[in-house]
């Protein structure tokens, strides 16, 4: 199922229970999938038009009045267009705003170039007290939503709108700030966030078939990072590969290496976008061009394992 459908289904259920939840859109209610909510909750769904900075501040005002506003738009229109509003009216002002940022990185596909952002985790993560989530599949999104509603403080959630593979079963439990331990091994640690977790799982399984063992950590909460899990794994494997649909500057690789360099200096590498301009293309072609495929994960992991 498309993630936007899972998202809206779960959000509607939560809105029925909690009358503080407000939905805001900036002319992308159709694209983001929130449109059906407008019929059921006409007072609590607010269309602001093509004005994302305005939307972020309206949300801050609603949050200051005790509401839990969810703002929705594509990644760059919140994490770039409304960045100062997020900095001042949301983060500095300590307002409970949730930012649902659709189609991170390569998932912009044919809207890429202008609509594509590989720097959102880096910029948003640098603000004080904001939580940053990078979602892998619809199950994780659905299971995370009740927590997202309850969380105290601003939260940024990057999520694909359309269909992804499914990694987790219905028994999945979302624990904010905790890594999902997906494979256990000692030759290398692979830390992957968002949809790159699919590629990381496949690459890890290929390595395992070839006789290597892999510690695989799925990271939905990029901030605050599960420091214990990463340090523990790095101490064991001595090699860490991060995997993300984001620039190598300041994203998951940044977060993990900030942690390790001070606490457990470890040989690291990244599957990430290496300072390359955004562009249009199919998601698969973009992944190949940016070096974000399962094969890239496998190759870089092997290189790390083989390094003395």
């Amino acid at each position: 199922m498309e993630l936007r459908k899972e998202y809206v289904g779960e959000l509607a259920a939560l809105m029925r229970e909690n009358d503080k939840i407000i939905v805001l859109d900036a002319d992308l209610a159709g694209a983001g999938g929130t449109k059906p909510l407008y019929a059921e909750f006409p007072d609590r769904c607010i269309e602001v038009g093509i004005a994302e900075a305005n939307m972020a501040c309206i949300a801050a005002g609603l949050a200051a009045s005790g509401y839990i506003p969810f703002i929705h738009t594509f990644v760059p229109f919140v994490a770039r267009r409304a960045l100062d509003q997020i900095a001042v009216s949301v983060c500095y002002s300590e307002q409970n705003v949730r930012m649902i940022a659709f189609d991170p990185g390569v998932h912009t596909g044919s809207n890429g170039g202008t609509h594509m952002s590989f720097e959102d985790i880096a910029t948003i993560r640098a603000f004080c007290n904001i939580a940053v989530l990078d979602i892998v599949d619809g199950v994780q999104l659905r299971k995370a939503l009740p927590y997202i509603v309850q969380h105290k403080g601003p939260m940024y959630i990057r999520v694909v709108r359309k269909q992804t593979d499914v990694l987790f079963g219905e028994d999945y439990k979302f624990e904010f700030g905790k890594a999902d331990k997906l494979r256990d091994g000692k030759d290398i640690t692979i830390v992957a966030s968002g949809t790159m977790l699919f590629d990381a799982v496949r690459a890890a399984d290929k390595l395992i078939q070839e006789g290597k063992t892999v510690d695989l950590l799925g990271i939905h909460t990029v901030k605050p990072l599960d420091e214990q899990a990463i340090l523990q794994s790095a101490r064991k494997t001595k090699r860490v590969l991060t995997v993300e649909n984001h620039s190598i500057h300041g994203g998951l690789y940044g977060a993990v290496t900030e942690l390790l360099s001070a606490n457990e200096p470890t040989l690291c590498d990244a599957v990430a976008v290496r300072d390359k301009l955004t562009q249009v293309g199919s998601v698969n072609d973009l992944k190949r061009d940016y070096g974000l495929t399962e094969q890239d994960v496998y190759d870089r992991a092997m290189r790390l394992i083989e390094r003395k």
Partner: protein
Amino acid sequence: MDVASFSKEIRRNTLRCLHSQGSGHVGGSLSIVDVLAVLYSKHMHVDPADPKKDDRDKLVLSKGHAGPALYATLAIKGFFPVEWLDTLNKLGTRLPSHVNINLTPGVDMTAGSLGQGLSCACGLAVADRLKGIDRYVYVITGDGELQEGQNWEGAMFAAHKKLDHIVVIVDSNKLQIDGATKDVMNVEDICGKFEAFGFDAQRVNGHDFDALDKAIVKAKSARNGKPQCIVMDTVKGKGVSFYEAMGAGVHSTTVTDEQYAAAMEELK
């Protein structure tokens, strides 16, 4: 205390606050003192003993750098001890020069990065409607601040959603950091612009208590589905002759011991 005396007390305490730091946003603080005096003596439904009272009127000081004038007003009203005024911008203070909702009793929204206040006020106003709370949300912006495009996003939203309990008060002191607003980037016709966006707009002398009071009464009583705008013609640095004469430089300037003494003499 009558409005004129209240206004003089606010001016004196605004300068006390700025003098504690030795400098600051003198001009734009002094230009809004008279409207603060009218608002807080005749209109703002607030309770200093319960600053978060549910049905209070709210004020968003979008030109957040004029914090010292609001702090002086709130201190005199009893929201916090007047001694706090001497802590402006000192590490750990409850009074940062740009207003912060979490630090100061009586401050209803954080502001400082210009152009965000009206949008935040729209959020407050929508929340009021959802909760069924009948109050007014006042927004004080600068005239130069209207150069920020986000104001017009907020204005469009306020009119579209018929938020007629929002009253935008524009402090038209006609100066900004780089010079006269008409030369830097002309924002006139301000009333015409707000009217074009669907507001009712009035223009008044921002230092005439009666005119301000009448304008606010008119704005409050409209309740015609249109958000309200009051453009105040003001003088940057109002009330102290040498600050009034300073021109654009008064935006951020010194309050030395000598200047403070001379100003207090004028504001006796």
